[in-house]
């Protein structure tokens, strides 16, 4: 991880968060911090509350108890959404006939920025080009999003999330339906975004296999937070050994 002056800066603070859909709590007493430069993987089995936690952090769901702070501001006071990039879970399940080009999808990301209304076409074009270049998708920019492969679509959604040069990038199960080889390249790209662009990355997955050289923090969630710490410590922890014993596969992307 590239060391910066801001390494200790808390980007997200989750304090004693509880959430329920009306049939018992889905999240209980969840507390942790996300710091500048982290590449955090939030892992847990299906139904453990990972996506719910992400939606609570992003203000899409209201917690029944607890407090979220983003960059030092309470969630309901936070307004700088252009500093947040988000790739939703359903990104790879889009309607293939939706008439929108890859370039149009990326341009949507600029709408969160207040400066976008003052941007001229050339500036906007350069932002989009830059984001497409970062994810290696310049060549497909004029193609309809539904005609791209799952891996390509996912890269386009990441380009949309980073086009504003956000400080934090959230990804919810980004490699669902993507083959193992593409996953390797995909995580390398995220590693590049994290290290070279200094964007904090928060990744939600049920696949323990994503634990690779790029991830430096791990949070295990099963309604409660059962582990939160460094990647290295996690690999020595009881939680990890228990997961392996339960038959979870680890796909190493140590290149």
């Amino acid at each position, binding site marked *: 991880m590239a060391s910066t002056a801001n390494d200790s800066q808390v980007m997200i603070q989750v304090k004693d968060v509880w959430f329920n859909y009306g049939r018992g709590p889905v999240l209980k007493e969840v507390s942790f911090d996300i710091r500048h430069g982290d590449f955090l993987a939030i892992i847990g089995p299906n139904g453990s509350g990972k996506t719910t936690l992400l939606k609570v952090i*992003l*203000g*899409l769901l209201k917690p029944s108890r607890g407090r979220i702070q983003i960059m030092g501001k309470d969630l309901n006071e936070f*307004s700088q*959404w*252009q500093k*947040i990039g*988000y790739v*939703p879970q*359903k*990104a790879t399940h*889009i*309607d293939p*006939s*939706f*008439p*929108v*080009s890859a370039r*149009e*999808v990326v*341009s*949507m*990301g600029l*709408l*969160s920025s207040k400066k976008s209304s003052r941007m001229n076409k050339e500036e906007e074009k350069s932002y989009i080009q830059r984001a497409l270049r970062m994810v290696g998708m310049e060549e497909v920019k004029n*193609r*309809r999003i539904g*005609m791209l492969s799952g891996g390509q679509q996912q890269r386009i959604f990441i380009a*949309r999330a980073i086009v504003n040069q956000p400080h934090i990038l959230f990804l919810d199960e980004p490699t669902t339906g993507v083959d193992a080889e593409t996953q390797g390249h995909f995580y390398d790209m995220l590693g590049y975004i994290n290290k070279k662009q200094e964007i904090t990355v928060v990744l939600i997955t049920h696949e323990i296999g994503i634990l690779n050289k790029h991830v430096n923090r791990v949070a295990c969630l099963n309604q409660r937070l059962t582990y939160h710490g460094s990647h290295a410590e996690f690999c020595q922890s009881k939680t990890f050994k228990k997961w392996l014993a339960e038959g979870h596969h680890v796909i190493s992307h140590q290149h």
Partner: protein
Amino acid sequence: MEGLLTYEFLQRAFIAGIFVAVACAFLSVFLILKRDSMIGHGLAHVTFAGVALGLFLNILPLATALGVAVLTALLIMRIKERAGLYGDTAIAIFSSVGFAVGILFATLAQSMNVNIFAYLFGEILAIELLEVWISIGLAGVIIGTMIFHFRKFMYITFDRESARVSGIKVRSLETLLTVLTAVTVVLAMKLVGIILVSALIVIPGAAGLQVATHFKQALFLSVIVAVSSVVGGMLIAFYLDFPASGTIVLFSFFLFGIFYFFRKEKRML
């Protein structure tokens, strides 16, 4: 074409028709992609209650129809959110109730049968000057609003959740879209009638989406189909002495057929 220049009533019909067609075309693409195309049909039925109320109270039916349609559209939106009704259940409920209320008022005002038929089946060639100005004004506002917010509407239609995370006021924009839809339905009612209004709200967008690969292209093609349908339909109706509303809708369906025929090419892009 001589008749176009000679007859004032035809000029009025063309001017109002083209404005309303463009408004319908813009909304059409968004409503279809939001899986909300039946809202036009539902609101048209509710509009019947508004028209009947206006005729019953002897005030401009266009005004009462606008009020009833906008209020109902907002109510449908709220009920869909709060009551957690599946898909278009709320639309189906209000559609039937609206029509029932319309029948009730129509029966109470027994002397207005002729007028009611004009609203049910459209009477664009009999459009009055005041209605032309109202249509142009409102359609202009709708078109302007859609162009101004075009990219935000595209974002919330494509990926509502991400649009919310990026700080876009999704709910406000959805409410705005709902109100614009209600106003458009009322304007289109004069063109093709309550019974056929949903065709003008759905067919242009459906045709454009058959072949469009980009969003702006879909909107452009939708506008072409809507305007061609209204102009072509009215010309055919004028020269062959057909009813304008039915001819407009049938001509739009003909254009849809052409687009459907060429849809294969889209799969290759």
